[in-house]
């Protein structure tokens, strides 16, 4: 589902090249659940950005669902994201001017706008997803009217709204207290199982990582531990 070969990322910082990732090779099987862990500054988020096609690597290539995304331009990659990828962010990243329901509907509407295909029952599915994360009675609240945990659960519902093949999650519990974090993880794991999505999770929270079927450990921009894909 995801293939990365020889990924390298170098930023220029204060006029000096700063190598953030070195020689990353990995393959994620469909419906796999991979956690990328490591200390701050180890390059986790950079790797996630590259895998999701949000950024271009200095060297190497990334393929999503069999398609090489390197030669694609910004808009073509955006299209791939709209069709195949979902996101969960550390700081929720809901659009503040939209209600919970509208936020969940954005990916659906975007895909419809791009492909022209009518998404029948999209709103029904959005309501259903919000119900499944326990927010059936909060459909018309704005992000500012929701607690952090509730916001992140709206973000979860949004991530699954488009039936994505791949879901990227960046420290989804990083801004939440332990208790709230746990309910969010439960929702995430449950939805992931039900929707049979390929999940790539970046975290430094070992408890969260323990839910994964495979844990890739990064340090200093290199993979220092990867048990490889396990069936399962």
């Amino acid at each position, binding site marked *: 589902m995801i293939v990365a070969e020889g990924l390298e990322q170098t930023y220029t910082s204060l006029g000096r090249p700063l190598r953030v990732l070195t020689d990353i090779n990995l393959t994620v099987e469909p419906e796999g659940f991979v956690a990328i862990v490591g200390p701050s500054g180890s390059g986790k988020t950079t790797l996630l950005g590259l895998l999701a096609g949000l950024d271009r690597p200095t060297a190497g290539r990334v393929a999503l669902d069999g398609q090489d995304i390197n030669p694609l331009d*910004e*808009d073509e990659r*955006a299209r791939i994201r709209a069709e195949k*990828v979902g*996101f969960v962010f550390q700081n929720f990243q809901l659009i503040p*001017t*939209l209600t919970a329901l509208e936020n969940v509907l954005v990916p659906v509407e*975007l895909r419809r*706008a*791009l492909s022209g295909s009518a998404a029948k029952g999209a709103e029904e599915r959005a309501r259903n997803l919000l119900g499944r994360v326990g927010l059936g009675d909060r459909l018309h609240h704005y992000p500012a009217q929701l607690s952090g945990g509730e916001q992140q659960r709206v973000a979860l519902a949004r991530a699954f709204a488009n039936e994505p093949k791949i879901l990227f999650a960046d420290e989804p519990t990083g801004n939440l207290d332990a208790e709230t974090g746990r309910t969010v993880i439960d929702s995430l794991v449950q939805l992931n199982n039900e929707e049979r999505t390929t999940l790539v999770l970046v975290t430094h929270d070992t408890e969260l990582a323990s839910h994964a079927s495979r844990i890739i450990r990064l340090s200093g921009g290199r993979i220092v531990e990867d048990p490889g894909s396990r069936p399962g």
Partner: protein
Amino acid sequence: MKLPFILAMARRESRASRRRLGLYAGSIGLGVAALVSINSFRANVTDAIHAESRGLLGADLELRSTRPFPAPIQELIDSTVSGDIIVSYVTNFAAMALAVDSQRTHLVDVRAVEGTYPFYGTIETEPPRHWTQLQSARNALVDPAVLVQLDAAVGDTIAIGNAWFTIDGLLSKVPGDVGFLTALGGRVYIAAAYLEETGLLGFGSRTVYRAFFKFAEQRSLDSFLATYEDLLRTEQVRYETATEREQDFTNVLDLMARFLGMVGLIALLLGGVGVASAVHVFVRGKLPTVAILRCLGASQQMVFSIYLLQAVMLGVLGAASGVALGLVVQASLPDLLHDFLPVEIHVSVEWPAIFAGLLIGVWVAVMFALLPLLTVRNIAPLQALRREFESARSPGVLRFSAHAAVVLTMVALSIWQAPDLALGAAFAVALGSTTLLLWLSAWFLIRTTRRLLPRKASYVYRQGIANLYRPHNQTVAITLAVGFGVFLITTVYVVQGSLLRQISLDATPDRPNLVLFDVQKDQRDSVESLILSHGLPILSTTPIVPARISQLNGRNVREILSDTSGPRVPRWALQREYSNTYRDSLVDSEKLVEGAWWNNGYLRQEGEKEQQVGRPPAQPGAAAHVYRISVEQQLARDLRVGIGDRITWDVQGVQIETEVANLREVDWARLNLNFFVVFEPGALDDAPQTFVTVTRSESAIHRAELQRDLVLAFSNVAGIDLAVVQESIDSILSTVSFAVRFMALFSIVSGLIVLGGAVATSRFQRIKESVLLKTLGGRGRQIRQILLTEYAMLGLLAGLSGILLGSAAGGAFVAFALELSFHPPTLPLIFIWLGTAALTAAIGLASSRDVFRKPPLMVLREMGE
């Protein structure tokens, strides 16, 4: 399929900021209101003038002469009149009217009517329809102002010269007369039958003889003009048709409205600056949202469209509200400009002006929004993951195009609004350079302030001034918006001030304030002794000798006029009747620029004594005496004469040969007796002439009493009280400057909206800062002081930039266009300056009320995010 999504997102995305965006829509709205009102008004005026076209002249054709119609013309008139073609005469001159009961006098504009003038339109009177009985008795119809000046009432008797009339009613409406032009001499209509009796049509009276024609059909008017145009020109009889009169009025008023419209355009420009600044801040706030949308798969084009659409909606909203406001303002313009309108204006809805306003409003909003919106295109989706990730800048081509779009828009609008291409282009350049200069001076002032700020200054001041540099500050936009308003006010104020100062300078103690015209040669001594007997001084007595040019360097005027080869001499310069004088010295409003002045004790050789003016030369063709004259330099340029050139004058039938001895520069702006041509003494001593005698009295009552006694003794002598003239000019200037300031007001309010909006958009950031300060122990008072320092400083800097530039622009206009000396009105400008600062500070503080109200607890929540 994209559109519904973009529409829906645009609608939703504007939710949280509608009030703020509405404010900015207001700034576009004001500019649109200014344009819609002035352009609708312009169309209304044109319509009204067109509808009353023939009423403006009262006839199809007017013939006009400053002498009684010469025999060939009178014969022409008599032979033309028949059945369908009717003629009516109006003789027009200035005279002193005396109210018999109150013994008060006033200079009036007498119009003696014979025949059924006006053929079109009606002269309305109070009581109604008394116009029809004007010629049936010794009746006079007068302006209400005349009654006030004469302290008389309807039914009273007034004397004009030797004839007495009963005031039969008041003039309430004379079509074609413009209010401010009649402000000086009130109109008095009488019947021409009593013209002779007044005894005022003698030599030296400035009388205009008019004949009005009614033609049955346009064709006969056209053929009349085609046939007799040359004759009229030869006899120096001027003519005007109803169509020409309509055109003249339309042109003048169109010009006036267009000028006011150009001032309105500035408001629109400021509205554009407001939109740019609003969109800039708005887009900054939307960066995370854009990043999310990009992350979720929206294309660059799509997110750009979402926000562009909001700018369009902003423009539509602003333009629509502007049209509504414009219609209200339009209704008030006829009152505002009443004194300049020859006809009554019927306010009606002008759809073209409205559509143009809507279109321009939306267009300007979108063009000014483009540049800040470009940022949206470059938001990387990665910014959803990492906020600190810097977006790439837009490609140079795009940014250049966005700038170019703004510049082209302003140029196109200037040209569209201006009376002609050159003026429009000049206005656009002026607009651009003013913007640039304001920008530079604001930048310079802010920099200097920061550098000059003492290190030891109290914390609140340092913080307040540092705030002007905060990241993403709107300092320049606000300075520009507020500064432009101040610039306009200052310019208008400086120009008006210099004009008024010039006039009041002429009213200082050593200057004359009562001028007596048309004193005949044989009256001179008696008039002077009458003045002296009133205890008033004779400041000067100046002879006036009317003359026309008959030859230039031996060539006949007619010959020169018909010569189409080579440079043309303006017709007016060759054909006009000159009022010349003679004296032995320069006066203080003149300066010699070329040649030498004749000194006292001019030489006249023996044997030439017989060669005197007033008699034809002894032998035709014999060498006549050549006298020296001094010519005003601009006239010399027009006539294409220089020192040594010969001009032959026709002085009441006598040819006088002169040579240009020197050229003078004349300060026409001075309320002085100024002359184009001054003869050396001796040349005109015996020519027919009248005198202008000037005197002075501090007391208006003394001046009135002298005028009364003068009118009683010498009915032909006209007196002008310069204090009254000054009042009239004062009121005309006030009206003009009020109209300009009224339009400038739109710019100022636009500027304040931009200010209020900019404060509102930085609210969130300010709340954070003030809450942080409070948490660190800052008191509400200190936070208020910081804000006060920031806004007051902003106002002071913007005000100073505007005042400096405005004084420079106004000063340049005064010095070069009006050729007056420029004295900046320091004290009023300081008031404007401080007023701007106070207003800016007040609006700034009022818009940030809730900033210092937030409790410090907020810091824990808001900063947590």
